[in-house]
């Protein structure tokens, strides 16, 4: 393992998270969505597992141990966003505010329920992939031991 790899890889997670956030946000006018954002983050995490090993990777970033919870929380968020319109007599997956209605803005960012749906998908994909990586890493280390 070269020194460069060991120094650079753990620091890639920050930029990867930034790229993921950009992919989610630009999904509303351009190519991008929660799914690909989740894959980008999971790839950065996978690189961390490869360079640091499962033990060190999870000690340095304890949230990785809770990947299944994140995945389930993401899917629950998706279901909540998808089905809450039913309570107002609208079909599932109706998004608010609807076309033409005023939107809450934070700077250039426009908030709609569709963004929350994509955040949920992002959590689901990232969580499920990280858990898969964790299981594979565990298998590899068991075999090595």
């Amino acid at each position, binding site marked *: 393992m070269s020194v460069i790899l060991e120094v650079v890889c753990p620091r890639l997670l920050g930029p990867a998270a930034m790229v993921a956030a950009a992919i989610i946000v630009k999904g509303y006018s351009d190519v991008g969505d929660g799914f690909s954002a989740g894959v980008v983050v999971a790839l950065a995490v996978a690189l961390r597992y490869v360079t640091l090993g499962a033990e060190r990777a999870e000690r340095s970033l304890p949230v990785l141990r809770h990947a*299944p*919870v994140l995945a*389930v929380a993401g*899917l*629950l968020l998706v*279901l*909540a966003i*998808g*089905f809450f319109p*039913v309570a107002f*007599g*609208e*079909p*599932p*997956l*109706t*998004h608010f505010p609807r076309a033409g209605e005023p939107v809450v803005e934070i700077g250039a960012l426009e908030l709609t329920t569709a963004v929350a749906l994509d955040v949920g998908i992002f959590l689901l994909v990232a969580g499920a992939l990280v858990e898969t990586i964790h299981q594979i890493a565990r298998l590899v280390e068991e075999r090595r031991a």
Partner: protein
Amino acid sequence: MTALSLSLVVPWAAGLVLALLDGRRRLVGWVAVCVLGANLGALVVLAAAVLPDDPVVVTTGNWPAGVGITLRADALGVLFALLSSLALLSATVFEVLEGVRERTFPGLVVLLAAGLTGVFVTGDLFNFYVFFELAMTAGYVLATYGGGRRELGAALVFTTVNLLGTFIFLLSVAGVYHVTGTLEMSGIAARMDEVDANAAVLLAAGFFVAFSVKLGLFPFHFWLPTVYTGARPAVAAILSGGLANIGAYGLLRFGGELLPGELDLAAGALIVIGSASILYGGVLAVSRRTASEMLAYSAIGQVGYVLVAIGVGGPVGFAAAILYTVVNALNKTLLFLTAQMRGALAGATFALGALSVAGVPPAAGFVGKLELFRATAGSPALVALFVLGSALSFVYAFQTYQYDFWRGERRGRRSSAPSRASSPRSRSSSSRWACGRSRCSR
């Protein structure tokens, strides 16, 4: 619309939460039972709305038709959803009373319920595939339930074969989209007439193979005995009473509604395959010594009746196929659950299920058989086949009943493989019937 959404979202969300909890705790098991009960309740409300009036149709997100995903609950779908939900509920109550052995069991069953409900209430072909896959994935993991060598072996066979079946299904879905340009079921039905006949036959064959694998019809049955005998009773009941309904529903929905022309074309072949299934399942079930093996082969025979009824077609044939599927799913759930229990009440319940499989009057199976006879009244050969099949069912069901419940030679539950391997030998020496067959039953 609310009932439709609730019947989907309640088991889906609850299944996710339950998957995180330790299912071996009794409370979690009962929560799963409550969720399945709520799912069943929502489906009953939905059925009350669907049966007298028109189907309930919801297009997600208020999108125009063809863009948004359509959820469509009609009488056929709601009936199958109710049936599957009931089977899952019974099996879960059984397993919770027995004591759940693995932490994931309640969550998986509830997720399976979400997938099955989705399959039966969707009006969109791709969505059908997604829910199908959700249900199947839960099924694959459930098949490993118990964690022993036998269960894992059964799960491997189940997963491999059914993944192949699902792959063929997905290819056919892609083909349908290619030739019709839509994934909405009503749109496909309308456009299928203009499709090139060769392409349509190929697609129909793909769907037929995919659903036949799921049902375990005769040439595609090879995975079924291993899985149903290897899995735990509750899981076998869930797979045969709940998950297998997808196959019958698929044949009815895709054959009867989307590809009626191709179904007419293949009617003769369906009747031949169905008849082969009836005879094969019946004869092999008679030769089996353990209840679970008998039930596995019986399942192959029983779906043959459904296929013959679909082949006969027309309102009478389809009605008979639906009715027989309902009766068969209830029979299998009941028999798989009671086969490993002992005692007077369990014996009486098993006898009731056995009567139903044979089609003897006081049991529900009689109504199913009666409809089958009505559907095939014009053909003496088919009537003769059904009589023969029923006679075989009577023999195998009561043969097992006699061995297991009357003679009391097999007491208690055989939970592990070694005891199972040793017990039949001692049994066969004492029985007149088993001398010639004890070899082939193992």
